[in-house]
């Protein structure tokens, strides 16, 4: 037996499309005979059999295949007998399999789906249908056969088939997200407050720092850093609720460092990797962490240790046009922040007006531990830090 592998046809494609098999499954092919047509991004190539043998296809027409992948086997005569391949089509034009094929025994009469449903619902013999002498049988033709009687409503209610195509299955990452948010909703009485922040200056500082540090610094990086600086003044916002979250013995465990989780979702599911000790690390380090997380989200997979043990969560809603967002409080935490993309707003400026960049900071908080007043104080401190960024950076390294 010879394995037939996809040859490397060029240097710039990682995969090719198997357009067409030029030899049938179970067919005897000779060394050097073209057996498959592959399409690269620039060309179609016929590929020849590397040896004599009986072709066993392993990959269907229209599928993608990679250089080196085994797409067929060539069996010698001593190999296991090949079973007959039935009904091979080579036009590579699969019709939806759920479309009923027109019956061949009635000289090309076409029966539409709705007509077929009604025929089956009423158990009408096909001979009667063909006797109408029409080439196309529609639902109205079948109703005619039924003698004008009203079609029974049952015939109209197509039962919901247990058809897999009707269900959207969730990825494993999404299943995990579902469990977490469901638990949060069940256990945490959350309230919400939002505040507008003028981010004009912090954005221009971030641009300068991006050049200086050679790392992407944006508003999320700044907010992580500013949040980290609030641990000492607002311990409850970083604390972990005790295991007994009911009754008079309510307690929360202080966090030693401000470990800030940040949402990352590049379309592969939602992940919340954690920036460790955001209060005491430099902006460059924080930026490097977040850049690493984005890369991992795009092309790798997070390790559990990246995702464990956040003390507070920053959820990013930086799509253009979002005004504010209410985050879910992560179980094991007392609050979660949300951040929108900056937008231009006209604000009062002395006796006139100025255009400033603003963003909305939201705070969802567990009302058992935190009240509205605390929330407002916390947001105000955050806003102060972001609106005078030079100071908070020099104070906090």
């Amino acid at each position, binding site marked *: 037996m010879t394995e037939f592998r996809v040859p490397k046809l060029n240097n710039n494609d990682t995969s090719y499309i198997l357009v*067409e098999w030029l030899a049938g499954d179970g067919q005897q092919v000779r060394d050097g005979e073209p057996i498959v047509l592959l399409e690269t*991004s620039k060309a179609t190539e016929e590929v020849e059999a590397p040896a004599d043998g009986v072709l066993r296809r392993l990959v269907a027409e229209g599928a993608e295949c990679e250089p080196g992948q085994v797409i067929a086997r060539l069996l010698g005569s001593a190999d296991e007998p090949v079973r007959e391949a039935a009904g091979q089509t080579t036009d590579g*034009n699969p019709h939806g399999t759920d479309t009923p094929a027109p019956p061949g025994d009635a000289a090309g009469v076409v029966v539409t789906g709705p007509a077929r449903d009604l025929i089956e619902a009423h158990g009408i013999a096909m001979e009667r249908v063909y006797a109408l002498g029409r080439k196309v049988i529609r639902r109205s033709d079948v109703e005619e056969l039924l003698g004008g009687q009203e079609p029974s409503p049952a015939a109209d209610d197509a039962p919901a088939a247990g058809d897999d195509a009707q269900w959207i299955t969730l990825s494993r990452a999404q299943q995990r997200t579902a469990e977490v948010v469901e638990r949060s909703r069940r256990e945490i009485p959350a309230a919400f407050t939002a505040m507008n922040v003028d981010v004009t200056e912090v954005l221009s500082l971030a641009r300068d720092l991006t050049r200086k540090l050679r790392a992407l610094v944006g508003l999320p990086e700044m907010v992580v850093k500013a949040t980290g600086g609030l641990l000492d003044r607002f311990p409850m916002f970083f604390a972990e609720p005790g295991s007994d979250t009911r009754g008079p013995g309510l307690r929360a465990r202080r966090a030693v460092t401000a470990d800030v989780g940040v949402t990352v979702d590049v379309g592969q599911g939602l992940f919340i990797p954690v920036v460790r000790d955001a209060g005491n690390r430099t902006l460059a380090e924080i930026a490097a962490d977040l850049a690493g997380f984005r890369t991992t989200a795009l092309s790798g997979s997070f390790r559990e240790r990246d995702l464990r043990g956040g003390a507070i969560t920053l959820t990013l809603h930086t799509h253009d046009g979002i005004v504010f967002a209410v985050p879910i409080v992560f179980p094991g935490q007392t609050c979660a922040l949300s951040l929108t993309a900056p937008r231009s707003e006209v604000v009062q400026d002395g006796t006139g007006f100025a255009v400033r960049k603003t963003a909305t900071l939201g705070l969802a908080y567990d009302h058992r531990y935190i009240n509205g007043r605390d929330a407002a104080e916390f947001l105000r401190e955050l806003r102060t830090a972001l609106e005078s960024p030079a100071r908070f950076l020099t104070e906090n390294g």
Partner: protein
Amino acid sequence: MTRVSEHLNQALHDLMESDPSVHLLGEDVGDPYGGAFKVTRGLSGRFGSRVRSTPLSEGAIAGVGAGLALAGDKAIVEIMFADFVALAFDQITNFAAKSTSMYGRPVPVPLVVRCPTGGNRGYGPTHSQNPQKHFIGVPGLSLFEMTPFHDAGELFARMFGLGRPCLFFEDKVLYTRQMHRVDDLFRYELVDDVARVYLDGAGRPDCTLVTHGGLVHRTLDAMRALLLEDELVCELLVPAQLYPVPRLPGLEDAPHVCVVDDGTEGGTWAAEVATALYPRLWDRLRRPITLVNSADRVIPAAPHLEREVLVQADSIRAAVREALS
């Protein structure tokens, strides 16, 4: 069973053998490469210096082709991807097309510019376009497109017979499809060189669709679903000559017409067809002609995003259902 690419290759072989004045030029058209899509395979070995692999300059290729045609020979020029024909725009529109009638007497310019066109293959924004609309309405220039129903040899003969330069589009998705093969529900016939695909014995269609070669299979898939699931009978007209728009047969009793074109919205071939049909059908149309085009967007490289931009069977079906509802 012949694939469209093989059929084209055979037609080129026959043409160059029967007419020694035909030259063929293009990037990588010589063997062993035989053209990016293998349509010119085996020609350089048989016809020697009449087949030339050229440098990467579409302007030069089209210009040399037009020069050969002007000097009394015939030329077929291959543009590797239709997108690159933009680089030959000046030679085609200002030199080849105008040369037919700017010297005080009619001058034949037997030039055919072959353009592998269209997307739906994940080739990205610069290798997937349909540039037809940019060449509509150029005096002296005709547009043709390969279809699964038309004999390529006859089309080459027709184009050379016109004595004016022609752009000949070949949708890349057709290359691997079979010639003369149609969905098992439908039949087809050629009426005055327009392929008419119809449902035998179904009487008057609910809608007549008009499309070009590259969208035939997607349109047939839509017609199949429209018939079997929506009980709407459609007929399809596929002209090989796109511009000037030829007379389309059998529209006299069509209650509705829908033109399907994979060019992006705005100044399209579909609009040109509708413009040609309105005066003729004005008294009978019950509603405006439906135009189905690709979205007014740059074609994305990611296949799932590309599908949303380009015309697909389900968008054709939805447009017909919407129009007839």
